[in-house]
């Protein structure tokens, strides 16, 4: 909610801008540039700390690469939030974590208990996630529920069904446990000797999702329609765009991605846990944080895939460093501090950018 008195419009741009002013403007208006600078700052800080011997374990490229396994669910759900927040009219999806839990149980039953082939289990889980997203999309887009309310309600419902489905018990039969090998790290062919091993999930799930969402947003008519309805859905309707259908699909895609994250999560835990996506503060809040940090405007219509990916890298490498900088449980607490500070900082920055430069890209 912005309650700003209308700012006086500058009559003309100042003819010349100092170098420092230009750098500041680029950093504030180009979210990608800001995130890149912050990532470098974080990594350099921890490298220096590491060299000074302040960390409990070495913070090097191997460690950074291994910590990327945490980026897989985070970035994917961040992209899911990107799609729904972009769709405008207060778009948000609080239920992604609950969909991860519920679709994970579906995967656990199908692959772990009923012996489906892996590809079928993955496809069914993803389709199931998409169905859960379709419920959200139907409520929001066709009935007209505010997204916050609809997804809050489905968050409760999915969470409850996931926990009751197997009587609060996780499913960790042998086929599920064997999936853990999928979340290991692999050496890349050709260049593998020169760079650290990379978690397999990056290639099997994250990169395909990133590429598909990027293509969807920037290279298809659907992507242009999504930007259009997020920016101004009345204008979009007058332009002949099926607003409701377009918005509906954004929620379906978010559910689909959440279904895929469920498979990743089951592999990481080597068990289908009924509270996988909702324990603690859940998966939805970090995902929304990533999206906002990545420059997605909560009012819709603005957001880029690269921003979300860079924001994920920033948060993952920051968290990984914090874990090493503190002994024991403290690290997890300071991660909360870091996440909260970064989010408030990013939000204030978005506001400042909007007032000073009329928006960021």
């Amino acid at each position, binding site marked *: *909610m*912005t*309650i*700003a*008195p209308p700012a006086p419009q500058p009559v003309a741009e100042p003819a010349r801008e100092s170098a420092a002013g230009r750098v500041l403007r680029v950093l504030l208006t180009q979210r990608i540039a800001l995130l890149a600078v912050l990532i470098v700052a974080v990594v350099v800080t921890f490298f220096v700390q590491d060299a000074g011997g302040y960390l409990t374990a070495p913070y090097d490229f191997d460690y950074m690469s291994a910590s990327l396994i945490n980026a897989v669910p985070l970035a994917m759900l961040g992209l899911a939030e990107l799609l729904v927040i972009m769709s405008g009219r*207060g778009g*948000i999806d609080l239920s992604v974590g609950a969909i991860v839990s519920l679709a994970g149980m579906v995967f656990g039953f199908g692959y772990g208990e009923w012996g489906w082939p892996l590809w079928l289990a993955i496809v069914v889980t993803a389709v199931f996630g998409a169905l859960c997203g379709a419920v959200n999309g139907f*409520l929001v887009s066709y*009935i*007209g*529920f*505010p997204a*916050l*309310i*609809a997804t*809050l*309600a*489905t*968050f*409760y*419902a999915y*969470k*409850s*069904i996931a*926990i*009751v489905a197997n*009587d*609060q018990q996780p499913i960790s039969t042998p086929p599920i446990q064997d999936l853990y090998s999928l979340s290991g790290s692999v050496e890349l062919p050709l260049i593998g000797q020169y760079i650290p091993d990379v978690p397999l999930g990056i290639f099997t799930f994250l990169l395909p999702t990133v590429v598909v969402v990027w293509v969807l947003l920037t290279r298809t008519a659907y992507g242009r329609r999504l930007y259009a309805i997020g920016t101004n859905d009345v204008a979009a309707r007058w332009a002949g765009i099926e607003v409701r259908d377009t918005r509906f699909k954004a929620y379906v895609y978010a559910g689909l991605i959440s279904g895929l994250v469920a498979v990743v999560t089951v592999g990481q835990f080597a068990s289908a846990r009924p509270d996988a996506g909702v324990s603690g*503060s859940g998966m939805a*809040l970090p995902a*929304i*944080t990533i999206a*906002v940090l990545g420059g997605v405007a*909560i*009012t819709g219509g603005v957001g880029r895939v690269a921003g979300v990916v860079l924001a994920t890298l920033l948060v993952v490498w920051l968290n990984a460093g914090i874990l090493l900088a503190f002994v024991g449980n403290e690290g997890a*607490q*300071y991660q*909360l*501090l870091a*996440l*909260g*500070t*970064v*989010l*408030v900082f990013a*939000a*204030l920055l*978005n*506001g400042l950018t909007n*007032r000073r430069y009329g928006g960021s890209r």
Partner: protein
Amino acid sequence: MSTQTLQPPAAPVTPRGRVLPSPVTGQELILVGVIAVLWVALALTTPAFLTAGSLQPLLVATAPIALVGVGMTIVIITGGIDVSVGAAMMVSSVITAKALVEQEVALPVAVLLAVAAGGLLGLLNGLLIAYGRVHAIIITFGTANLFLFLGLQIFGSRTVNGIPATLAFFGRGQEGRTLGLPHAFLITVAITAAAWWYLRHTAGGRHFFAIGGDPHAARLAGVRVQRRVLLAYVVTGLLVGLAACFLIAQGTSTLDQSVGSGKELAVIAAVVIGGTSIMGGRGSVLGTLLGALLVQTVTSGVTQLGWKSQLSDLFVGVFIIVAVGADLLRARARARRTS
């Protein structure tokens, strides 16, 4: 040119008919009906339900949600939201619990401490939202993390043990009741009634609705928008502090780190079930109290029927959909009548 005597304008016709919406909305009547049906159904199926031993805990458990719900209703009426109340409750209650254990403070001091702590956290939210001009949901997601960090740091260990029974006045026990009614619930009802009157019958109260309807129009009409928004979050914080006292009193002598966790969604659920529009500009604290009572009735009913307790979340979800859906349909019908 002859000088014309200017006719004084005719006295404005005093508007007849209602300026205010009716004191009780349709949503609230429906909620009363639904709660009555549920209570009768539960009384028929489980004979133990309509007894003091079952209803008193129900009312005690409703109190903290409904109390924070009063503040949340005001915040949502202004077009905002506060998802940090669960974390703020945790901070408030751990500070108070520590003071009770280590300083052995008296009841009024403990309450003041909790309310002050909650108020400060609310002030931080309010300052960031009103003057930082950032969307409330983003800021409060951020401050929720900060509050969690703060609370966990104050906790130090996993639990606070040996909390004395200083706050028993708000608790489940005999000291916590007058004429069979729990004090926590009575206080909540009193604060709800005061807020209802304030929101409905004072200029300051109507300003919140004006801001939620259109902040720019409200500003042009002379409402100090930023101050009113700040006030909404501070009031929520103060109520969070009092609710934290209720939570300590309701628990055992041990407070663990999960206190307050997930409460923000329960509060928001109570508010929207009560008929407050999440888009701002419309809502009622009376509905919120009924919404909280309904949610707690479902939770308690599911346990008493011997069903899995996690099923209550499913019903809460369904109630949110039905309540907001009914509201949407009525709004659509209203729009059709007027056009």
